[in-house]
């Protein structure tokens, strides 16, 4: 990293934070702080919703996913537009009609206080942990490749986010998210065109696509019903739909974004904006990854992109074996370059036999390369089984640091840190709001004045920020914490979605039945996870169906007890 990179990175981040604090200081009341005074336009809501979902891991991991496994991951988002339509038609009109500040407030009106408190607490556990991981995940990667101190990086990201989120609330979150999205998309476009410009003469974008296709990286759609494939068209449409419905419809970090809309229409248009742009945006990020793959067909790449893993294995007794693999890898790279040139020239001359032959050669070399990469992973695991062998999170950052010119490196690092900040800000904003309004204010016997609750919301936002930094700092003491957080998410998400679906679609079900079902479901889902009954990804659907079924049965049973069928 050169001086120019530091200037670009520092200026960008400080400008966003400074502007956010300056532009939104002085919230007068809770409404101003929590709902941004209800004056957000649809494009602000749309950008804010997209920025909240896109965390740093989206930009670090997604291109790496495309590099290794192709563009199939985009199918995961196929259910999202339909979920947006359902939320616009069912969720938003009810939230707006009841003029709620939080999603869980609606549950008190529909059911009772204990159901509201239960769902709010489930949210706090899950989001509180996730906020720490949103800071930790990019920090661990950046500290590994740049040699920065992990703890310092966690604290810097945390303090920058806390500065504007605590002072300006929802308005500061959405104002900064607009700028962050601008930086993110500008950076990704620059990276994309830089890669195209760095390909050998004669390799245009069209040819680059053909090369990616010849290497099976463009298998975007998979219509098979094979359940062992995680990303298929069908799993995207069904699983993706439920996940998006739960996330955008019931997670306060998202609900708070569109509740800040000037009118119901602005909120709905904001989500429609997301429904139209989300898939192309994800496709574009994946396409950048596929272009990184094409770039490395002509340029040297390491056999494993994680520098910490390479260091560990080289210092171990497996160091010599690893070095042999690296030598093999370099020989293969030479062969691969020759085969790629042969493929490109055969394409240009439209010699179909030569194209088929070159394609076969490339596939053969790539199979060998993949086998070498897998062997390298095995050696790393043998050297130290606590080191992360899956290097997909490191592919894009390795490309950025080793190939982009000065200035652009700083911009891309600003992209990653902006993404981390935009997600964390929404999370802290939601955590502070839920703690202050759903728990603190609701449990008070006597209502205090507006200023008191405004101060309380700010204080809770600050406390959650400090807790998130603390979680990020201790996160590397635990193995596989990121996966643990995903598992915790799956344990609670389905249950909470089920409670909301009961509120919207099962008018006859009442508070007691829902509360008992939610508690029982939660216990059973935790047992299911501990006993390993199913993959944790299925816990969402299981929890959702279970709570609905239990509540309907309980309510019907209760109804029968109170009004036994009349005997004729």
């Amino acid at each position, binding site marked *: 990293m050169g001086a120019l990179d530091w200037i670009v990175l520092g200026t960008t981040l400080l400008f966003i934070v400074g502007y956010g604090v300056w532009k939104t200081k002085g919230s007068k009341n809770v409404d101003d702080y929590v709902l941004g005074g209800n004056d957000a336009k649809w494009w602000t809501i749309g950008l804010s919703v997209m920025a909240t979902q896109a965390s740093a891991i989206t930009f670090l991991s997604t291109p790496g996913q495309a590099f290794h496994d192709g563009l199939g991951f985009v199918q995961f988002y*196929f259910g999202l537009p339909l979920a947006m339509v359902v939320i616009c038609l069912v969720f938003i009109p009810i939230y707006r009609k009841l003029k709620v500040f939080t999603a869980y407030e609606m549950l008190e009106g529909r059911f009772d206080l204990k159901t509201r408190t239960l769902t709010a607490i489930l949210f706090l556990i899950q989001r509180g942990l996730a906020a720490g991981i949103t800071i930790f995940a990019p920090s661990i990667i950046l500290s590994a490749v740049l040699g920065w101190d992990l703890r310092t990086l966690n604290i810097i990201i945390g303090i920058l986010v806390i500065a504007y989120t605590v002072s300006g609330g929802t308005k500061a979150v959405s104002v900064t998210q607009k700028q962050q999205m601008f930086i993110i998309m500008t950076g990704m476009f620059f990276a994309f065109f830089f890669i195209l410009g760095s390909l050998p003469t004669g390799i245009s974008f069209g040819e680059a696509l053909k090369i990616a296709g010849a290497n099976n990286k463009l298998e*975007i759609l998979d219509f098979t019903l094979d359940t062992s494939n995680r990303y298929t068209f069908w799993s995207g449409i069904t699983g993706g739909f439920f996940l998006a419905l739960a996330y955008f419809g019931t997670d306060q970090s998202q609900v708070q974004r569109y509740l800040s809309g000037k009118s119901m229409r602005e909120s*709905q248009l904001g989500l429609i904006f997301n429904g139209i742009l989300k898939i*192309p945006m994800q496709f574009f990020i994946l396409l950048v990854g596929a272009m990184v793959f094409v770039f490395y067909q002509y340029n040297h790449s390491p056999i494993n992109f994680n520098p910490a893993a390479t260091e560990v294995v080289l210092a171990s007794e497996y160091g010599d074996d690893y070095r042999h693999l690296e030598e093999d890898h370099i020989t293969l790279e030479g062969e691969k370059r020759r085969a790629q040139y042969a493929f490109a020239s055969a394409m240009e001359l439209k010699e179909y036999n030569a194209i088929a032959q070159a394609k076969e050669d490339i596939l053969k070399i790539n199979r060998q390369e993949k086998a070498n990469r897998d062997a390298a992973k095995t050696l790393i695991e043998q050297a130290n089984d606590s080191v992360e062998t899956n290097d997909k999170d490191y592919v894009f950052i390795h490309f950025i640091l080793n190939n982009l010119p000065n200035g652009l490196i700083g911009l891309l690092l600003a992209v990653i840190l902006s993404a981390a900040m935009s997600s964390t800000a929404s999370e802290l904003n939601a955590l502070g709001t839920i703690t202050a309004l759903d728990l603190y204010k609701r449990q008070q016997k006597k209502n205090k004045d507006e200023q008191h609750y405004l101060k309380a919301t700010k204080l809770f936002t600050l406390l959650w920020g400090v807790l998130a930094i603390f979680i990020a700092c201790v996160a590397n003491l635990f193995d596989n914490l990121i996966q643990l957080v995903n598992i915790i998410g799956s344990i609670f998400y389905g249950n909470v979605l089920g409670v909301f679906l009961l509120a919207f679609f099962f008018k006859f079900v009442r508070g007691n039945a829902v509360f008992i079902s939610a508690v029982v479901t939660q216990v059973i889902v935790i047992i299911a996870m501990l006993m390993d009954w199913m993959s944790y990804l299925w816990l969402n659907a299981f929890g959702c169906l279970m709570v609905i079924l239990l509540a309907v049965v309980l309510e019907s049973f209760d109804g029968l007890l109170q009004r036994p069928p009349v005997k004729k």
Partner: protein
Amino acid sequence: MNERFEWKKQYTVVLLVNVLYIIIFYLIMLFNN
């Protein structure tokens, strides 16, 4: 009534645009494999 019709049209457009994306993805796959 008219407003409702307008909204139906907008939701249909969202879904149709996404179907169009999937068709484009299919064509990209078809022409580059």
